């Protein structure tokens, strides 16, 4: 879902960078409160792990593939604001070091995968999981949250390229197509998120408990 250079026009670039910058400012203040010193090593490893997972595309139907976004996974463990920072670190390094996602599109890519996907996934997860800290309910909630987070991210992406004059098709074309493919790709996001969360909680059941604060 990484938008390359050339898909977005100047107004969309400016608008997405502006919205993202506001979230960066808020997230860096909120993350200071949400993040405990003890969580730093695990957050760093999980961020590196999500980066690694994004390298592995899984095939879906019709010669198309998808890969993990990971925003919901990080957000369920560390809260949405540290997740914004975590996804930003990944996307910045992908853009600058690996040329994955354009630098002009970085604001949009952080907005889609680091903000829209993170908050939609997290809020849906919280809504379904409630106060549950383990068991089936957490797994189902994380699956649904992660699945829908990809759809919301894809919707944002479809809107951005669709309204952009540099992309020759409008949102009537881009949004349905983005939603169609990501409705399938999202299943992978749900399975991986619930799977990783399930196995992590087995060995570290304390991880979700800290989330109640």
């Amino acid at each position, binding site marked *: 879902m990484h938008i390359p250079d*050339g898909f977005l026009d100047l107004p969309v670039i400016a608008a997405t960078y502006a919205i993202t910058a506001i979230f960066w400012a808020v997230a860096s203040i909120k993350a*200071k409160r949400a993040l405990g010193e003890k969580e730093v090593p695990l957050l760093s490893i999980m961020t*590196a792990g999500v980066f690694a997972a994004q390298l592995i595309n899984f095939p879906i139907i019709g010669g*198309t*593939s998808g890969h993990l976004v990971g925003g919901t996974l990080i957000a369920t463990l560390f809260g949405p604001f540290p997740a914004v920072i975590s996804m930003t670190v990944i996307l910045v390094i992908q853009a600058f070091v*690996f040329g994955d996602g354009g*630098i002009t599109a970085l604001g949009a890519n952080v907005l889609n995968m680091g903000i829209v996907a993170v908050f939609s996934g997290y809020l849906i997860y919280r809504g379904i999981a409630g106060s549950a800290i383990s068991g089936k309910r957490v797994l189902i909630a994380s699956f649904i949250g992660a699945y829908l987070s990809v759809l919301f991210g894809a919707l944002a992406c479809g809107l951005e390229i669709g309204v952009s004059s*540099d992309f*020759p098709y409008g949102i009537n074309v881009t949004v349905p197509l983005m939603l169609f493919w990501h409705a399938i790709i999202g299943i992978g996001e749900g399975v991986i998120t619930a799977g990783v969360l399930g196995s992590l909680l087995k060995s570290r059941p304390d991880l979700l408990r800290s989330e109640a604060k």
Partner: protein
Amino acid sequence: MNNKLAKKTAHEVEKIRRQILASLAVIAFLLILLIPLASTSPDGLERVAGDLGVSEGSGWQGLLPGYGLPLGNEMIGTFLAGMIGVLIVFTTMFLVARLFTLRRNQKREQE
């Protein structure tokens, strides 16, 4: 800080260091296992753009474009580029997160 506490802290730091190294080894192992199985098909957005005949513009291609190193063997190149990325992401996230937690700890120590 008394001696006992210092010893305990040193022990904790050593334990965390071991856990970090073990986790990085697990990530490396999973990459070795999964890179050969990974799909090279276009992802969702690439598929949409491809079907619509829209090609991406020219821009910054990155230091290691397409997660590759020119080593002859594509999979080894992807693995090494991937591990370089893993280490950069880990270090960056660690430093950023430390920055966030540092100021608060200094405040706590002053109190």
